[in-house]
């Protein structure tokens, strides 16, 4: 039995209830953490029991037994409660079990959160990468200093050309124009989405630059419209809700 020497004297006094104040508090704190000293306390209490037995030479009067038995018969039998053990014997186990459960839950939660965080980071990085690519594409397509080259058959004079890239479900559209002739003042080219059913839908107004190039990026369009074709007319520069002139150019989907 290894009892902490600094507590040895105090433990004996504690076993007798003869320790008070800070010393008692200190011993109780130590007992809560030290199984060896708790065991020594049990033995010291056993020693005090021997001391108690040294006084055992008296016999109680007979009436004491009658008094007890009468009281027992009157006492309603209480419902049995489970054995209650010393709080410091059970408290550390209860606390340890609770802490273990809590630690496991926290570890699981922490691991889950870390996984979610890692997934989120991956997704964010992926989205960031896609966004950068999209920005580069759009920047290249829409750059005013971009060199737009349209390759056609040799000896063919340059022809006006329009390229529409349309995603129906998103309602997004990118239109690239090249070799377009300038329009007269107060006028502009207007792009039309020609749906499979219904009237043409306005898809942006543009004027070609000095090189005959122009772009239209994501004009306001309803989502999910099936496009049969795209068409271009010349309209007032503010745009028209419906074509007011003949179709200059027309293209259907490939």
């Amino acid at each position, binding site marked *: 039995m290894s009892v902490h020497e600094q507590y040895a004297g105090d433990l004996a006094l504690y076993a007798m209830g003869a320790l008070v104040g800070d010393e008692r508090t200190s011993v109780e704190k130590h007992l809560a953490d030290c199984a060896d000293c708790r065991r020594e306390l049990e033995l010291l209490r056993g020693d005090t029991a021997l001391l108690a037995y040294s006084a055992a030479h008296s016999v109680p009067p007979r009436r004491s037994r009658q008094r*007890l038995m009468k009281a027992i018969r009157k006492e309603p039998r209480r419902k049995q409660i489970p054995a209650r053990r010393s709080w410091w014997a059970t408290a550390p186990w209860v606390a340890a079990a609770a802490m273990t459960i809590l630690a496991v839950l926290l570890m699981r939660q922490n691991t889950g959160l870390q996984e979610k965080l890692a997934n989120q980071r991956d997704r964010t990085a992926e989205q960031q990468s896609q966004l950068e690519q999209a920005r580069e594409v759009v920047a290249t397509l829409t750059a005013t200093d971009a060199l737009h080259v349209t390759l056609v058959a040799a000896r063919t004079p340059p022809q006006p050309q329009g390229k529409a890239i349309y995603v129906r479900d998103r309602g997004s559209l990118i239109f690239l124009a090249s070799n377009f002739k300038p329009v007269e003042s107060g006028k502009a080219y207007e792009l039309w989405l020609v749906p499979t059913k219904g009237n043409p839908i306005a898809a942006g107004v543009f004027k070609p630059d000095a090189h005959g190039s122009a772009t239209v990026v994501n004009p306001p369009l309803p989502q999910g419209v099936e496009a049969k074709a795209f068409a271009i007319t010349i309209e007032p520069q503010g745009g028209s809700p419906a074509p007011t002139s003949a179709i200059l150019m027309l293209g259907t989907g490939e």
Partner: protein
Amino acid sequence: MVAADDAALMSAIRSGDESAMGALYDRYSGVVYSVALRVLGETGAAEDMLQEIFMQLWRRPTAFDSQRGSIGPWLAVITRNRAIDVLRKRHPEDDIADVVVSVTPDMAGDAGRNQAMEKVRDALDSMSAEQRSALEMAYFEGLTHTEIAAKTGEPLGTIKTRIRSGLLALRKVFAS
């Protein structure tokens, strides 16, 4: 076996058997009454204490854990503690279920108990008067070590040492 008898009595008491309570009283009332009388010094107060201790056991027999000691020494210790509380006019400091007592000698049977008591008395007689007095003041009068030091005019460390070595000397009687 007498030890088994104690366990059987406690089991019957837990089931509400009044006659088992009577049998346990017959076996241990002498110890409880003697300790209470030694501390309180009055037969009436000792009888009240005797009643209180056995009624506590009747109401809450599970307070004693038979896996962790013998009923006799446990009753002796909780009687002494409660009697000191009464003597010092204070509320009980410990729950009786928190008191775990471990003793080497077999105190269950009458023969073993009488032999053990004789050995303890011999051990006390062989101690110096100062040591025996320090033990008795602490145990039967409920004085703290500072009160004993003040009463005897001896250093605190000396009192601590006397009490601890006195208790260990009692244990040593049964170690061989």
